[in-house]
């Protein structure tokens, strides 16, 4: 981590700031598969030159936990989700497996979510709950609850290593604009926007925390802090409460739009689900 900062400042000192990224030493490879943790920023992310995975900014110890699925505590919850996948529930006496032969068939899905459909923005959680209520006749799962985060991790895992690639044009454009506006709006008693920390000050220490770009390519994320998988919206909510702002509704339109916008800022980064953070 420090390596990034050290390298950058040395390079600036020597008047060759432009060549620092090539020397970037941190690489992420899991079970022999290489991940893209640093990429040139997409054109629609005007204020960044490069996009970087949050993994880069964690301590050596935290980063190590993501290198091996056996060490990654997120997999305990993925394993539980495999049981859920096969568990019959609801009035139709069906399990996910009754209709979806292989969870592997969801490869690639995670990279494209959230997506606009019939005038609505749809997240992975929405898709899962739609199957539960419409196909199984079962109760929807709580948006950020344990069953849901386990299942979205299991489905997201099928896209691990693939590059984030959400659509932001056509029907999605209006949601994307809304998300962008939210990203740059100051809120809370501390009067800060997401961009104040994650765009203006990433790769900087804020007390004990090394600020990242606040990317979502690793969600759901296993956090050491609460020892469970955390949904994207739960993380957004936490950041808002830290600046003493009333969070938007988990699963609501504002957070979904913000999720689309931030996903688009991570365009080109590998899916890391389930990632490990502090």
């Amino acid at each position, binding site marked *: 981590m420090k390596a990034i900062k050290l390298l950058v400042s040395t390079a600036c000192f020597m008047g060759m700031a432009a060549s620092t990224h090539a020397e970037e030493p941190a690489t992420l490879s899991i079970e022999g598969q290489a991940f893209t943790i640093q990429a040139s920023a997409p054109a629609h992310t005007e204020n960044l030159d490069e996009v970087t995975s949050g993994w880069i900014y964690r301590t050596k110890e935290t980063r190590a936990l993501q290198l091996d699925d056996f060490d990654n505590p997120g997999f305990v919850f993925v394993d539980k989700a495999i049981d859920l996948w096969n568990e019959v529930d609801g009035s139709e006496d069906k399990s996910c497996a009754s209709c979806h032969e292989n969870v592997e068939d969801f490869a690639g899905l995670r990279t494209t979510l959230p997506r606009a459909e019939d005038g609505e923005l749809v997240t992975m959680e929405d898709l899962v709950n739609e199957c539960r209520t419409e196909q199984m006749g079962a109760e929807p799962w709580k948006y950020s609850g344990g069953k849901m985060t386990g299942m979205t991790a299991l489905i997201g895992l099928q896209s691990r290593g693939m590059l984030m690639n959400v659509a932001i044009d056509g029907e999605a454009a209006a949601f994307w604009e809304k998300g962008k506006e939210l990203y740059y709006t100051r809120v*809370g008693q501390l009067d800060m926007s997401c961009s104040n*920390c994650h765009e203006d000050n990433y790769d*900087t220490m804020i*007390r*004990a925390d090394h600020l990242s770009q606040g990317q979502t390519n690793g969600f759901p994320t296993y956090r050491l802090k609460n020892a469970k998988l955390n949904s994207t919206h739960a993380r957004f909510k936490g950041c808002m409460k830290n600046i003493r*702002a009333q969070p938007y509704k988990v699963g609501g339109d504002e957070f979904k739009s913000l999720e689309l916008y931030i996903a688009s800022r991570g365009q080109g980064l590998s899916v890391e689900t389930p990632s490990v953070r502090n």
Partner: protein
Amino acid sequence: MRIIGISIAVAGLLASPLAAEPVAPNDVNYEDGVVLASLTGVAGDPVNGRDVFKNRKLGNCLACHVNAEMPEESFHGEVGPELTGVADRWEQQELRAIVANSKMVFDGTIMPAFYQDTGYERPLKDFDGKSILTAQQVEDVIAYLQTLKE
């Protein structure tokens, strides 16, 4: 403890019956990056100011500023400039403006306004209509900052 605290407070009131109410956040007069008058008329207490500076629920200034005078604290943030020797760079009345509402001094800054109780959106209920610090806590922090000389 309790009783003593109360009697001191009462004694304080009696001793200075003319002591004014603190200046309300919206009445603070910012002129060219300075606030001339004390917000309370009571001298700041640098010892309490030091606590306000590091306390995560109060100033939490250490979240963003390195401060060489607090080596016992393990984590110093780097979002803003180091405050080591800050009293050599800024006068008391400038520091008052910076702490009370840094946006009056640094355009578009990330540094929160510590003495503003309106003008922000969607505050959590518990904080609605309140400033992060009280007027006296602001004066205490300023008194502490004034001890940071190189």
